């Protein structure tokens, strides 16, 4: 493809021919011969199997837990409850000062979502662990649950997570992340048309072919080797160190080979409890999610709701944009406060709009805790924004691609969160796209450049 070279002329070459060409991957020889070692390919003599007893309720107080029958089950070696976990209440992002700690490794006094881990059973075989888990008796007092973000934010809604004290994440900016730029109401006042729409998405499961898990082997020198498919090696090591109250030097993590992750393997869930099991029994331990657990228990992409109100002029300029975004964290934070925050920076889209107002809420509900997935915090926002852009173009009778040329950000433009635009290349990308897709736009747009405000 012949690329135009008006932009980044000094660094762009015509000799590029990588796109569309297969390139050998360094790990492929292992994959095609079946030699690549995934964590579950490690097997140690005497390895125990860990199975979780999980909450059948969305929200309930735990009155009592009776593990006596499970402990007597043939093959059972150890049964763990909250009191066995050295630092049971944690949150992953505490490593970057995003608190408070709000999640239990094993439920203590309360469960906040259906599927929450309550008791861990370690047994000689997977079957014995499964059978014994079924014998653990948990007495629950079922509490009212809330599943809808707007319901959760209403006064009087059931409180999901006491560690927060309210059903939203409290940012230093208050109940939501805020972006304020220009005067959005004045912008709406001058607009020829105003369009307000709301967009919603459901949780999405990553469904990797290899399920989440780890294998832990106690070493002779009081260290533990943890073979894991985490996507977040050092996050996991550091959080395991906090949860287990064990110096990081005692933990040796081996990983990097992941049978599909897509963001679904960045939470620190299986490793700490498996290491604890290995420590308390002195035996190797494997904790591997069943396919059902992968689909029902592992964090999905958050459900989101995005409300966009735009003021637009008949000549195509968007003069005001107000966005309220809601991210459904489920019962615990995990990566969602960060996802919602990313949304706040992202919502104006790649457009220069003089008046912008953004609020993004990270909301707690009694749903499965959500977390990272490919571009979390921005992917659903982009869907909403670009559908909105098409609707706006239709509203004023403009070609949707030309409408984007009018509003595209260019180098030097100030973005709403006050980062000046650099290296945008959006105009040039759209020009190439217009040609490649055979979707012609007026000559004045083809003459535009990201460098200047001319044309």
């Amino acid at each position, binding site marked *: 493809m012949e690329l135009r070279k008006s932009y980044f002329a000094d660094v762009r070459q015509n000799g590029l021919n990588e796109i569309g060409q297969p390139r*050998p991957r360094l790990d492929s020889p292992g*994959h*095609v011969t*079946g030699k690549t*070692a995934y964590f579950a390919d490690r*097997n140690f003599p005497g390895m125990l199997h860990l199975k979780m007893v999980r909450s059948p309720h969305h929200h309930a107080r735990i009155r009592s837990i009776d593990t006596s029958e499970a402990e007597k089950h043939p093959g059972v070696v150890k049964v763990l409850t909250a009191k066995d976990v050295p630092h049971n209440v944690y949150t992953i992002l505490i490593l970057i000062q995003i608190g408070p700690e709000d999640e239990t490794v094993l439920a203590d006094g309360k469960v906040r979502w259906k599927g929450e881990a309550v008791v861990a059973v370690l047994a000689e075989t997977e079957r014995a662990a499964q059978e014994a888990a079924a014998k653990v008796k948990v007495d629950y007092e079922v509490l009212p649950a809330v599943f809808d973000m707007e319901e959760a934010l209403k006064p009087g809604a059931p409180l999901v997570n006491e560690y927060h004290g309210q059903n939203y994440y409290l940012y230093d900016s208050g109940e939501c992340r805020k972006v304020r730029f220009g005067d959005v109401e004045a912008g709406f006042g001058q607009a020829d048309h105003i369009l307000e729409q709301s967009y919603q998405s459901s949780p999405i499961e990553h469904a*990797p072919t290899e399920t989440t898990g780890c294998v832990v082997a106690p070493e002779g020198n009081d260290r533990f080797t943890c073979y894991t498919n985490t996507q977040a090696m050092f996050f996991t090591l550091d959080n395991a160190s906090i949860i287990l109250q064990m110096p990081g030097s005692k933990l040796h993590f081996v990983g990097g080979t992941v*049978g*599909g992750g897509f963001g679904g393997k960045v939470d620190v869930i299986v490793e700490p409890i498996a290491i604890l099991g290995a420590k308390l029994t002195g035996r190797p331990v494997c904790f591997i999610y069943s396919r059902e657990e992968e689909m029902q228990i592992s964090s999905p992409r958050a459900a989101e709701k995005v409300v966009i109100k735009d003021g637009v002029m008949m000549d195509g300029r968007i003069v005001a944009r107000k966005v309220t975004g809601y991210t459904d964290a489920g019962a615990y934070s995990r990566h969602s406060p960060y996802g919602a925050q990313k949304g706040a920076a992202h919502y104006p889209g790649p457009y220069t709009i003089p008046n912008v107002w953004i609020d993004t809420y990270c909301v707690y509900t009694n749903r499965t805790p959500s977390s990272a997935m490919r571009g979390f915090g921005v992917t659903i926002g982009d869907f909403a924004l670009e559908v909105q852009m098409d609707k706006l173009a239709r509203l004023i009778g403009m070609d949707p691609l030309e409408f984007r040329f009018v509003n595209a950000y260019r180098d030097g433009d100030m973005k709403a969160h006050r980062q000046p635009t650099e290296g945008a290349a959006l105009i040039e990308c759209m020009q190439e796209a217009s040609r490649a897709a055979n979707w012609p736009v007026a000559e004045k747009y083809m003459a535009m450049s990201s460098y200047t405000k001319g044309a």
Partner: protein
Amino acid sequence: MAKVPVQFTLNGSEKAEFVDSGTTLLHALRDKIGDTSPKGGCHQGTCGACSVIIDGELRLSCLTLAETCNGADIRTTSGLAEAGVLHPLQRAFLDAFATQCGFCTPGMIMAAKVLLDHTANPSREEVVEALSGNICRCTGYEPIIQAVLTAARANSQNAA
């Protein structure tokens, strides 16, 4: 629990093991015999990652009881390369970027092998049909299909 003896050929070599009655072939291969090339993605017959070849037929090892395999000839992806030389399918998967995370790859290669053993020059539709029981969540289906077609061409050129 009662143990049962099982004896079969795995990639040409004799294997004998005692397993718990009810043990799946997947479990026996991976945890007893040590061939970890078949993968467990679901243990319920839906993903195809555990595919192996038993007496020339494609089988899901997670749904096959080890004790039903006495005397069988079992082939897995780990036994496909001969004297260190990759099978044309393995070569084609490498060259066509048909692996991403690689977890589905051994199962895909088994399914493709059975197809090519029965159909030397498959159509694209036949390739798609043959791989339809194997899930690739990294969704590299197009390069995988291309790899199988390329391997088929390489095979028939060698034969010619």
